[in-house]
């Protein structure tokens, strides 16, 4: 904890840090690669839709001594379709028959119950008509579209349009990766998966919003100083919120991990598993994208803004001048980035100097002085 706390402090002060923004091209490249892989996977392998989408039936039997093979034969004979039989953790069998109409499903259910020697009521069934899945999918798409539009509007108001766009791109990035993983690994897509995917929407954005919030704060009044470019500030802000980002992601992932563990290990299959699997993949992608993609994107977009461009120019000019004068970068800062109220006070009272040099002395990358972030 002490170590972590110290790391947090040093990250906070910018003594250590990773140049997320500066190395963005690498991460963009990696993301593009992953995304392309995902898209290719999706195109080539397609998604493995569960019966909820294709129509069909899933039967779960009580604990039974009848063998899976026998059950499979019964199911196939009575339904006329291929059946997949799975043994679940502690004895029950899960029989999945796709492309089955509602009426035929009932025949199969009866046949299975007879075979098992139990009453029909004892066989768990989940019968889905073929049109149902389309509707779920349609609604999910509608929901996705509406949500994205609303979120872009909201973020554009709460932050600014560049952040909204960056957040949207990060979001699409997360969704693509998650869907790609599903296509490549061949996990079954069920309503649970859709729920998981749609939840990622909120969650991936939650993460991004936390980072952006810090960015917005630290980049306030950025044009009033000439020490740092926007990208540099963005990077510092990112490093400053890193601990928080990691913590929130870990804490979000832990319950999902619990779900996944129980859903996958205990129940074998089903809703819990589907939701948590999609969530797990999506959350991980979301944490990655809000740090490595969203913020650098904002910086990229921002650097195109004339004001920020001018700022970058001024900063460069100033640095060149300083270099010419032989001054070191550690000079007391002349202006304060971030425009925090107390920073202004600090500056006025000249408090910053010593802190600055301490930080410098600790020797960290970038040589960026302290700014208030978030």
């Amino acid at each position, binding site marked *: 904890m002490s170590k972590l706390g110290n790391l947090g402090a040093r990250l906070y002060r910018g003594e250590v840090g990773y140049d997320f923004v500066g190395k963005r091209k690498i991460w963009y490249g990696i993301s593009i690669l992953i995304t392309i892989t995902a898209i290719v996977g999706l195109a080539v392998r397609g998604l493995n839709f569960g019966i909820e989408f294709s129509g069909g039936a899933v039967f779960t039997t009580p604990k039974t001594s009848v063998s899976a093979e026998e059950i499979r034969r019964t199911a196939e004979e009575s339904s006329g379709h291929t059946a997949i039989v799975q043994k679940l953790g502690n004895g029950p069998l899960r029989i999945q028959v796709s492309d089955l109409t509602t009426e035929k499903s009932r025949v199969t259910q009866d046949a299975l119950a007879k075979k098992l020697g139990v009453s029909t009521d004892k066989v768990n069934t989940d019968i889905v008509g073929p049109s*149902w899945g389309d509707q779920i999918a349609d609604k*999910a798409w509608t929901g996705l579209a509406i949500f994205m539009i609303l979120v872009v509007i909201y*973020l554009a108001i709460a932050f600014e349009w560049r952040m909204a766009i960056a957040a949207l791109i990060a979001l699409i990035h997360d969704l693509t990766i998650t869907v790609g993983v599903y296509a490549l690994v061949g996990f079954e897509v069920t309503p649970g998966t859709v729920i998981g995917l749609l939840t990622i929407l909120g969650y991936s*954005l939650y993460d991004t919003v936390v980072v952006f*919030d810090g960015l917005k704060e630290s980049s306030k009044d950025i044009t009033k100083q000439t020490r740092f470019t926007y990208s540099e500030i963005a990077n510092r802000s990112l490093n400053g919120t890193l601990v928080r980002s990691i913590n929130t992601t870990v804490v979000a992932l832990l319950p*999902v991990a619990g779900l996944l563990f129980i859903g996958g290990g205990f129940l074998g299959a*089903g809703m819990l598993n589907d939701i948590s699997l999609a969530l797990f993949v999506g959350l991980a992608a979301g944490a990655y994208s809000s740090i490595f993609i969203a913020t650098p994107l904002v910086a990229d977009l921002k650097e195109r803004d004339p004001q920020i461009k001018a700022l970058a120019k001024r900063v460069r000019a100033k640095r060149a001048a300083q270099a010419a004068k032989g001054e070191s970068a550690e000079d007391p800062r002349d202006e304060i980035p971030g425009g925090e109220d107390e920073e202004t006070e600090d500056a006025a009272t000249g408090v910053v100097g*010593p802190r600055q040099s301490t930080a410098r002395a600790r020797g960290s990358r970038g040589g960026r002085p302290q700014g208030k972030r978030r």
Partner: protein
Amino acid sequence: MAAPKKGRRSPGGQGRPGRVLALILIAMVALTGGMFASGRTTPRLGIDLAGGTSFTLEAKNEPGKPNAINPTNMNTAVGIIERRVNGLGVTESEVQTQGDNHIIVNIPKGTNAKQARQQVGTTAKLGFRPVLSMAPGAKTEPTPNASSPGKDKEKDKDGKTKPSGTPSASSSAAASPSAGASASPRQQGRPVTDAVKADATPSASAVAKDDKAKDEKKDDGKKDDKAKDDKSKEPTPSPADVAALQKKLDALDCTTPEGRAKANEAAAGAKPTDVIVACKKDGSAKEILGPVSVEGTNVTGASAVFDSQQGRGWLVQLKFDSTGSKKFADVTGQLASKQSPQNQFAIVLDGEVVSDPSVSTSITGGQAEISGGFTQTSAQDLANVLSYGALPLSFDVVTEQTVTAALGGEQLRAGLLAGAIGLVLVIIYLVAYYRGLALVALASLLASAILTYTIMVLLGQAIGFALNLPAVCGAIVAIGITADSFIVYFERIRDEIREGRTLRPAVERGWPRARRTILVSDFVSFLAAAVLFIVTVGKVQGFAFTLGLTTLLDVVVVFFFTKPLMTLLARRKFFASGHPWSGLDPKRLGVKPPLRASRRRPSAPVDPKEA
């Protein structure tokens, strides 16, 4: 966040944290009290956790009637389906609309799912059939003479029997509407009683004749196909039919719910052109009914009204469309001239006689009133039933899920276990990382849990919210979201301490910024939940609901619980002095206190009163 921060008053009440805390504690106690007072201390469980059967029905417009799927029609349909399902003797079944065009039917365990499915899956059929014969509800000994209609029991609701000297119209003369209303005059002039005595069911003959008429007048169009189908299967009138009908009537036992259910099922399965035997809803009578003379779809509206002017009490008014009014006028004209019970017509819904008013005059003009002996409820029920006849909707079963109690219990246990594991993992992480602060997080999580639980229980009663597996998942995922808010705040406080502040100012100064981050991110989360809830159907909705609820509660808890609690704790020595286990030890946070603290503090613009 710039300068004016220090003057800002947070809703957490910097000045009176105790009061705010007390407020939310009172709210929690009130909710808990409300929960116990309401008599249920566990949330309603969905079918997938409690066991049972769940259907999703999808409404379809009847051909030629677009725009029939609207909230009014759907709600009427829900009422009818509820009636049918509860007719099976199911308790605690629930029927509700979902989205625009879906109806969810949940039937708890211990019900015959097959029977329920039949009830739910078939389209309700409403029709007006003339009463041919009536008998008390109980099983009757077979009478040797099959020609005893009417003498069994004269049941005349309105007491308006008009002895008619000219029983000229056989009840069946109205012709089955399904045969295109091709009433043939040839059928008339044959008294029903005669017909029955003559060992030919009037209806059978009528239908047969109809079909002949049909053959002659092909232009009658509309329902040709059906009529032709019927023709091929229609038995030629034979003495056996009448005998069989009478036998059927005798065998019918309308006094027990099971008997009625059986009778209704059989009657509902009959074609509109068939002569049927049916039970009265209350089991008081059983009746032989002629073919459908006016179909329910010809009813355009029905309402229950209270007649105060003529003192007739509650009555039901109904309106017919043009086809319906013509047919109704015809049939009432014929019925009016007959003796009881043959001057009665039965309103049959799904094979059950809901009402059998008698007719005194021919009712023309497309409007009719049914009066006599109604209470408000019964009048409204009947109006409801009649309106359903006007519903141009049919329903398909699109999903069906049967979960045994065993599996349901297992899923519930798994969900709870997953939640517990998730919670423990989160707690371990928080304790390891935040030490003493984790206590605050735990207390806040607990507060959040209590609020969520009680509200879920109360909502279960208020709006029928049922906790299903996805909802449990939503709640578990929410642990993370809720804990995230605390992390955002704690990290803020730590940052402030790193700036060299002592705890009390740090807690206050960190709050406005943390608050904004929490609000913005929770808003996004809530937006996702709301959109999900509105546009999706089925299981996704349960998940979205929990997620939205917990997000809202997260804001409530952070504002009214965590923040005041932090403020209070900041006054404690354990935290304020930065005890190594408090999670706020400046040294561990990497503060270089000697220099900064002394230099900074004077400039830290924190109003001491606020802390």
